[in-house]
């Protein structure tokens, strides 16, 4: 075990998997010589050469389509899309290509690619560089979507994603890259996709979150503890497919739930969480599920405005108190 930053954990996963499997290659804007604007691919071009680590033109639409077809023909591409805000440019390749061919040509091809991107607000990057568009991705059949929060999961899940036979969207967060944690050094420690994690265990209310919102949920749990409320924080880790049994187990215990996502509320990822709980845990619920999400408006730039919209610990704690009231 070693203490690593989240970005370093990702870097280690990339290095190990590229060393292990010559079919793995990586491409994206400014990921090569510069090492990526968040420095996740630092040093990889020197180690693996310009053939396997490629700086690309600004062409998200074709890059994503090329990742799909390259994956169908023998390689395991990793594509970095610099900001999740640019995911709308990648949608055709995901919705009409990646999603479709795994089923139509089942048995003939696999589509093992990883699309890494990062989203989220909090540092004044404005309405076009701070969004969380998780739900657009999680809606697409045939694709997995993961959003780990700890450096250990970042490494273990990225490795699992690279080895997965299906397309995996790997969602990072700009405010997580510098967070630190214990990370396995061993090359063969994978964290399975599709499994949630109990981040804090509690019996009064369940808070379901992913990515940086887990940090906020944990802080909310501390606030709630002061009021004598024992919140259970479930780090979903994977957004598609959902770990249903973890959700059911937690609600069977707490009978109350708050669902959190940094994306917009209406038709958001929180809507699916609420609906899933409706489907599977209705009889266990003592109160309606509360959603905590981005209000349905563009993310403003100015600090007081941005601070007012991004979901945080105090909004989560407040929602929990309301739910329990």
């Amino acid at each position, binding site marked *: 075990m070693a203490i690593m930053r989240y970005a370093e954990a990702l870097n280690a996963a990339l290095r190990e998997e590229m060393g292990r499997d*010559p*079919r793995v*290659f990586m491409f994206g804007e400014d990921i090569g010589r510069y090492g990526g604007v968040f420095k996740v691919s630092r040093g990889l071009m020197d180690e693996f050469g310009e*053939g*396997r680590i*490629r700086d*690309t*033109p600004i*062409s998200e*639409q*074709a*890059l994503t*389509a*090329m*990742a*799909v*077809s*390259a*994956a*169908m*023909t*023998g*390689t395991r*591409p990793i594509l970095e899309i610099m900001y999740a805000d640019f995911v709308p440019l990648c949608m*055709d*390749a995901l919705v*009409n*290509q990646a999603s*479709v*061919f*795994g*089923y*139509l*040509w*089942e048995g*003939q*091809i696999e589509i093992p690619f990883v699309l890494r991107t990062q989203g989220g607000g909090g540092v004044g990057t404005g309405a076009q560089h701070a969004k969380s568009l998780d739900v657009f991705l999680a809606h697409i*059949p*045939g694709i997995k979507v993961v959003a780990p929060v700890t450096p250990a999961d970042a490494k273990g899940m990225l490795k699992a994603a690279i080895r997965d*036979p*299906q397309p995996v969207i790997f969602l990072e967060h700009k405010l997580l890259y510098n967070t630190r944690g214990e990370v396995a050094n061993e090359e063969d420690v994978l964290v399975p996709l599709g499994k949630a994690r109990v981040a804090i265990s509690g019996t009064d209310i369940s808070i379901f979150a992913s990515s940086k919102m887990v940090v906020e949920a944990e802080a909310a749990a501390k606030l709630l503890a002061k009021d004598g409320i024992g919140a259970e924080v479930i780090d979903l880790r994977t957004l*598609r*497919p*959902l770990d*249903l049994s973890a959700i059911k187990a937690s609600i069977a215990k707490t009978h109350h739930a708050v669902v959190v996502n940094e994306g917009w509320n209406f038709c958001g990822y929180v809507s699916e969480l609420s609906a*899933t709980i409706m489907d599977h845990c209705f009889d266990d619920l003592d109160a309606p599920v509360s959603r905590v999400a981005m209000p349905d408006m563009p993310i403003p730039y100015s600090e007081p405005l941005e601070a007012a919209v991004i979901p945080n610990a105090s909004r989560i704690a407040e929602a929990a108190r309301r739910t329990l009231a």
Partner: protein
Amino acid sequence: MQNAPSIEEQMEIHRRMILTRRLEEILGGLAKDGKTRGPLHRCDGQEAVGVAGCMALRANDYVCTTHRGHHVYVGKGMDPRRIVAEIMGRETGYCRGRGGHMLLGDASTGMIGGNAIVGAGIPAAAGMALSIQVMKEDRVAMAVFGDGAAQTGIAHEAMNMAGLWKLPVIFLLENNQYGLTVRQEVQSPVEDLFIRAAGYGMPGLKVDGNDVVAVYQAVAEAAARARRNDGPTLIEAKTYRMQGFSTSDMGGYQSEAEMAPWRDRDPIRLSAETLSKSIGSEAVAEIAEAAEVEIQAAFALALADPFPVFEFHRPSGAYTEV
């Protein structure tokens, strides 16, 4: 002639063009009788592009095509019976009835695959070429696409990267003069689209898309270039769409005056004339007869094949309900 097809290859091209034409015609008849589903896009008159283009490649080279891909399917060596079965929604089809006529895929012949999103095949081929380049394989990838597709943004992005990285890819632009119902001049201010190749640092050329030898030569030369690591080529094959856009086209915009000269330049007729000079008209007729037997058998078998049964869960769990 450099890179020209051999007589045997010309015979095979001829045979596959006839298979394609008859496939289209019989399907057209079934469509009229209400026995097909969804729109069917025939490539009558354009057979030379897909068939000769694919025949100039090797078996393990990759190709991808559009909604109008019957000539590519047959050209790349796919089995007509399984093509028909797919189009007729049968379990024995290439995609077990899941794809339909616009979305066939066959990894065994490198046909990866049809695509009904206009333009999508262009980056698809570039991505396959990227895979080839990363793995240092001796293969090429080819996209067959239309004049309409050339106006999509994704064409620009893919061609720029192909030129930049010298990807082993061939862009075979099948200019049949129409998008859906509008002529090419309503879609683009320039008549010759191959000139755009200059902006991507790659050679561009035009060929007579109704002349199998010309198409074959151009593709063979581009493939050789790609194999030499000299990068991509844009080939514009000028041809004409003799049927409507699809079986749901209400027509009324292609005039007889416009079509007549192209009818005279039917690629199958031209190929028969050329071939006759070397193998005699009887041998040419024999090819047609054998093709007819084969296509009739393909339809007979495919139409007797069973429909698939719905099952929700894929073995791999890719699409399992959550």
